């Protein structure tokens, strides 16, 4: 349950903060959620990783399908040197997932360290 809640919260907070702030705010969003929802660091990482992976992949995919992959096809040739919109969407998801996951891991470790200080 905690896992699902933190997954959802991370995605929501990332979306909201990204409306006004730079892209890397997703790491901060995942960090905050991990600080407040107590989970094992591994689980926290996984929740945020999945959260951002799903969020970025689904968003990129839905934008791209409304665009009939016109842009993704061109940008994938620039970045991946092959015409492969699917791979570009996957890469997008992975980047979000890694940054988010690491943010959450840091958050979870911070909570762990703070608890430790108080003891």
């Amino acid at each position, binding site marked *: 349950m905690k896992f699902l809640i933190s997954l959802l919260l991370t995605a929501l907070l990332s979306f909201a903060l990204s409306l006004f702030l730079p892209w*890397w705010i997703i790491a901060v969003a995942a960090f905050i959620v991990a600080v407040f929802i107590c989970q094992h660091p591994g689980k926290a990482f996984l929740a945020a990783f999945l959260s951002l992976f799903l969020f970025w992949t689904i968003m990129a995919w839905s934008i791209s399908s409304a665009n009939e992959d016109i842009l993704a096809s*061109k940008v994938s*040739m620039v970045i991946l040197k092959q015409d492969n919109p699917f791979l570009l969407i996957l890469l997008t998801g992975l980047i979000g997932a890694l940054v988010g996951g690491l943010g959450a891991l840091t958050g979870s*470790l911070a909570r762990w360290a703070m608890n430790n200080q108080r003891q």
Partner: protein
Amino acid sequence: MRLIFLAGAALFTIGLIYLLNGSQVLPAPLGKLLSPQHGVWQNAEAVDESFDGDISIRGLKGNTDVYIDERLVPHVFAEQEDDLYFVQGYLHAKFRLWQMEFQTHAAAGRLSEILGEGPDSRILQYDRSMRRLGMVYAAERSMEEMEKSPASKAQYEAYSNGVNAYIDQMTEAELPLEYKLLGYYPEKWTPFKTALFLKYMSYDLAGREDDLEFSNARDNFSKADFESIFNILSDSLKPVVPNTIENPYPVKPVVDLAPPANADSLYYSFRNDSLTASDPFKPARENGSNNWAVAGSKTKSGRPILANDPHLGLNLPSLWFEMQLTTPEFSAYGASFPGSPNVIIGFNEHIAFGFTNAGRDVKDYYEIQFQDQGNNAYLYNGEWKPSTKRVEIIRIKGQSLLRDTVVYTHFGPVMYDHTFKASEREVRNLAVRWKAHDSSNDGLAFYGLNHAKNYEEYLAAIRNLGCPGQNCIFASRSGDIGIWQQGEFPAKWRRQGDFIMPGTDSSYMWKAMIPQSENPHMVNPPRGYVSSANQLSTDSSYPYYTGNVFPVYRGYIINRMLDSASHITPEDMMKMQCDNYNVKAEFAREILLRTNTNVLDETARKYFETFRSWDLRNEIGSMGATVFELWWQQLQQLIWNDEFTLAGVPLPWPSEYALVESLKNDSAYKFTDDINTPAKESLEDMLALSLKKASDSLSRLEREGRGQWEKAKDTRITHLLKVIDPLSRLHVRVGGGKGIINATNRDNGPSWRMVVHMTDGIEAYGIYPGGQSGNPGSRYYDNFIDDWAGGKYYELWMMKKEENKDKRIRWTMRFRAA
């Protein structure tokens, strides 16, 4: 222990973000670029994107409604003229912001700032060449002139405000793709940027000369050889304006145009001081165009028809943006330049107007003798005249800035000196005298044409055009047609400025400008049409020298077709604009057919047969066209390359008609012999040898499946950045070529085709190889290209306000005062 874990994780996270946010390690800031809420995904415009909008902005004077049709062409209806140009600026920015700014950066020599110095410092060298040519200086001069006209000032300011209104409300996510890829942000627009853009067009159209190369040629050939290779008057010349009894040229020049007394020794002499450098950034020689207008006497309807297709570099986003501009006072429609207000080529309810390049040489070099190494004074008429200096600051991405000092003389900037060398062997100080440096308010010409109602108003409008000189074509609903070669042109003596001139002596200066009324022109001629295709505007009976490099064949074939045409319809004119007949091949054919086929091997004989049975048309699928183009190119190389290589310095390549006419007139043409062999080669030897050599290339092309003309030519429409192929359209299947009315070369060709029938209500057709949106993620980025390649046209709809319920209108934008 836990703190160490924490610190490690935190550092790792920050490190990853740093990595993905910049291009220090990765080739691109992948995180920033791929974030779906910030990066390039935001440029993926939905195919059913809505362009509706309600925009309220402080400072607008009235209401403006923009109806956007199914091709994304905006039809702007403004109550107030200032608002019209505001909205034009806003729309240009909305659809073309990156390109507008990039082109002005290119004009101002600021590309290194965003792209870095480039491989082999190429981009930096380009920037320096633009600075040293005085592009920024020229734009500053035209600003001064523009500010003298309150109407122009108001127009340019309204336009800038419109661009800035768009930039101000744009979010980071809406930033055009190229800014994201290159990692920079747009600056505020200013009237100065518009001035820079217009100077860029001057550079593109009136910035090319081969004066340094011609100076080399003069120094390496005898006078007789020089005049034969670089003959100015082609036998096929049909001047834009012939000298006729009813429309005679001026009899004598306004000033005495005798060459300076010492010209024989100083200017026409052999000095063996050839330069070794050659400007690698010259505007393409093929930047030409076709235009013609036929009178009612030659058309089916009895009304004039005007046609224009400017040939420029084929790029994405396109140079052109189609739109309609309407106020209660006027309504104009056509192709506009993102970066400048007004319609540039188009029509209004009364007249149609278009341009081809005049191609006059208005850029000359003077050799400067400085007093000492400080370059503070130079010798002029026996005295030391002080120079001024201008420091150009060039910022370079990822490097410290470069200060480039340019010395200015009364001729203009000293483009080449010890820091920017024209010769590897010695220091040559060459100042540029360029018409684009003189102040003029050229934009006023377009403003005037948009509003003009008749011939007199057209003439008053184009008089504002100083540089680049253009063949301004005109047709009116009331039945008039006309053409003026307009611009401010120096009155030159024969060959003045073809070579570097001495800068120490006032007798080599341009003596005067030709009076505007003496510019070549023709109005309602008895032959029933006016036309131009960058050929010489006049024959040698015109009292002024007009320059040295002009194409002839498009002009020849256009006039031949128009001479025999009658009952013309707009469809006939569209067909003619896309015509692929190769008239040069018609002339060259009988020379090539003199080949002795007995000495040919089997392959060469096969290609000879392909050529013999060819219909002289450079159509898609034609093998004959490929054979001709390669064979002729090879023959030119064999005939001239031996002599040209011997010189060992850059030389101008002879004109397209030089070899055809030399061989036609003289079968023992002296350059035929290969000077590197003891044998004396004849034309027959060279014909066989060139076909043999061409056969090797042709066989290779055929093996690669590229034998057909459109594949061998391989037309491409490249993105302005040149290096990002996925944003370009490569391998466009289209016929035509050099010297053909459909002048589509590899990366240069008809950039806007327009045919206007001057009926009541105006019936017009047009197309350009691009799309209305500059966004590579939009379906409107390149959606006209296939139709353009296929020779199709769209109907240009001059909308009336009351037609706002028409089904062609897809979206509406309303601009209101806040």
